[in-house]
């Protein structure tokens, strides 16, 4: 199976320059919010950080196809590039990071990265890996039962394909031809365990056994990811059923702020992948195509820097929920 890369320019994908600027902005925003999160951790202000770094291209490329509030997203804990594209803000990110009352995901109950928004159809997520897949299949089934054209995008890392839930959901989606897209961000590591001890054969090729298409795509090429995901959305929208996409990417940070990746991977490997940084690559494309120049790039960077600083400061000064709030909202009222 050939790894898909951008074969065509953005025009052929139906993207105009504003789309590209928006994609670029969101990739860079996700990166800068993440970097700021690590600083807050080092300052002792943030107890835990889980990163998107290296996966922004895959995330923005895939989620750019979603219609917020219509389609459903089941993100996994690294998908800040997706949730902010859908409408969550840097303030939301930092409020969640610091466990503040206004954290829109959970009101300070969950760790950072456990996204959820009823308004944006981002289904509340948790820490056990892979549980989202059967749920996503069920959500897609509801669309199909009502003959609606909604689509479900469900995401996870490569290790999320090892457990039964992923396979049960793939099987069910195949049986009922459900409008769901399985988006696997293969970032090479599950904490310390590399792909070679996690994945037998190919993730993408497993789709064939379940009766629907699977694609490998260069996950650090935002346009390639957009293209293959767009095709999958088109298939689902046309009633042609599910698609599996394996985005080959790389986790550029340690698993989390509690992990020291020097114990299990070489610095040289990370440096090699830095050359394939999705943001650097996309900026090169934008500059070569005359969509972005150095000064514009600096201007955007400054704007994001200010936005991130403001959001971080806001969250740092925001109040915690009342301690008694830990007792509230266990059961929904009829």
């Amino acid at each position, binding site marked *: 199976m050939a790894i898909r890369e951008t074969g065509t320019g953005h025009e052929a994908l139906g993207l105009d320059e504003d789309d590209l600027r928006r994609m670029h902005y969101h990739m860079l925003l996700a990166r800068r919010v993440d970097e700021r999160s690590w600083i807050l951790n080092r300052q002792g202000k943030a107890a835990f950080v889980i990163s998107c770094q290296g996966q922004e291209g895959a995330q923005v490329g895939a989620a750019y196809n979603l219609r917020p509030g219509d389609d459903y997203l089941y993100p996994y804990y690294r998908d800040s590039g997706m949730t902010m594209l859908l409408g969550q803000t840097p303030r939301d990110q930092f409020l969640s990071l610091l466990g503040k009352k206004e954290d829109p995901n959970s009101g300070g109950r969950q760790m950072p990265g456990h996204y*959820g928004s009823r308004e944006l159809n981002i289904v509340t997520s948790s820490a056990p890996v892979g549980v989202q897949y059967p749920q996503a299949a069920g959500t897609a089934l509801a669309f199909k039962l009502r003959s609606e054209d909604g689509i479900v995008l469900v995401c996870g890392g490569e290790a999320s394909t090892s457990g039964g839930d992923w396979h049960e959901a793939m099987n*069910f989606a195949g049986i009922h031809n459900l409008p769901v897209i399985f988006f696997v961000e293969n970032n090479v590591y599950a904490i310390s365990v590399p792909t070679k001890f996690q994945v037998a054969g190919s993730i993408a090729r497993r789709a064939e056994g379940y009766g629907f298409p699977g694609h490998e795509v260069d996950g650090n090429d935002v346009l390639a990811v957009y293209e293959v995901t767009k095709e999958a959305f088109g298939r689902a929208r046309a009633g042609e059923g599910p698609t599996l996409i394996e985005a080959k990417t790389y986790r550029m940070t340690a698993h989390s702020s509690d992990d020291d990746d020097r114990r299990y991977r070489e610095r040289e490997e990370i440096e090699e992948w830095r050359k394939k940084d999705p943001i650097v690559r996309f900026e090169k494309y934008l500059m070569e195509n005359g969509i972005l120049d150095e000064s514009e790039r600096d201007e955007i960077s400054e704007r994001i820097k200010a936005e991130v600083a403001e959001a971080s400061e806001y969250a740092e000064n925001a109040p915690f929920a009342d301690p008694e709030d830990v007792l509230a909202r266990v059961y929904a009222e009829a």
Partner: protein
Amino acid sequence: MATKNLLQAIHEGLAEEMRSDESVMVLGEDVGRAGGVFRVTQDLQEEFGAARVMDTPLAESLIVGSAIGLSVNGMRPVAEIQFADFIPPAFDQIVNEAAKFYYRSNGDWSCPITIRAPYGVVPGGALYHSQSIEAWFCNTPGLKVVAPTFPADAKAMIKSAIRDPNPVLFLEHKRTYRLIKEDVPDDDHDVSLGEARVHREGTDITVVAYGLMLYTALEVAEKLSEEHGVETEVVEPRTLYPLDKETILNSAKKTGKVLVISEANLTGSVSGEIAAIVAREAFEWLDGPVMRLGAPDVPAAAFAKPMMDHFLPSAEKIEAAMLELARY
């Protein structure tokens, strides 16, 4: 009003909810054309179609997980786990997912699913078609666990469970499916989740029981009244989690003597929780030790009948315990 057994009552409750609300659907193994291995969903597929009465692959995590996903997209799914013994693969989806959706999203997402699961000892059921698994789930805030025993209650409570905005585990004792018939109201007869029921008034002792043990306790209560003049108050929790403490405590305070009976393993059981509540909150009213009867701490009932019978609290053991408490 028609006379129905438990199985027919649950069937009727499901059918009525499906008729009145298009979002209600049933999914599970063999629930479709076969109508379920116990026939609870008999003929539902004929009436509502294969999409709303859906046969699923044999994958419990998928059954509950997809029900969760359906529920967050406008549906009211009723997932069937064929035997409660087979629920462990769905444990993560029930305990870590469904039960925590509302809390972990700070009230943003709710998860209105019902999970039906037949439980309890049945002749020939052996280890994996017999277990009482309620204690596994009665330690899970965010989840409701109900176990009605009488047909009219079961019909009303399956409807309440479906309409409830929270995930509800609905346990049906297999051996009571066809054990008795009673009048079951044709339309809505409201039994809210979380309300216990006093089946028999009494002044001497209180028995708290559910499932098959409730029937036995009621029979023994009549016998003790006739033969010994002992008047037993029999309370059925109906909802095992969260418990209706008030009704149980009122009875405990009235009689001063409480025996809790179920066929679950005693250690770590719902009976233990009930006993602890009574021991603490009705202490001043008690005239005897809070007693419990249950299955011994062995894995489950056996296939061979003599061993199965020995596993269950029998009518004789129940009678002896009730008399012991009455005479205390």
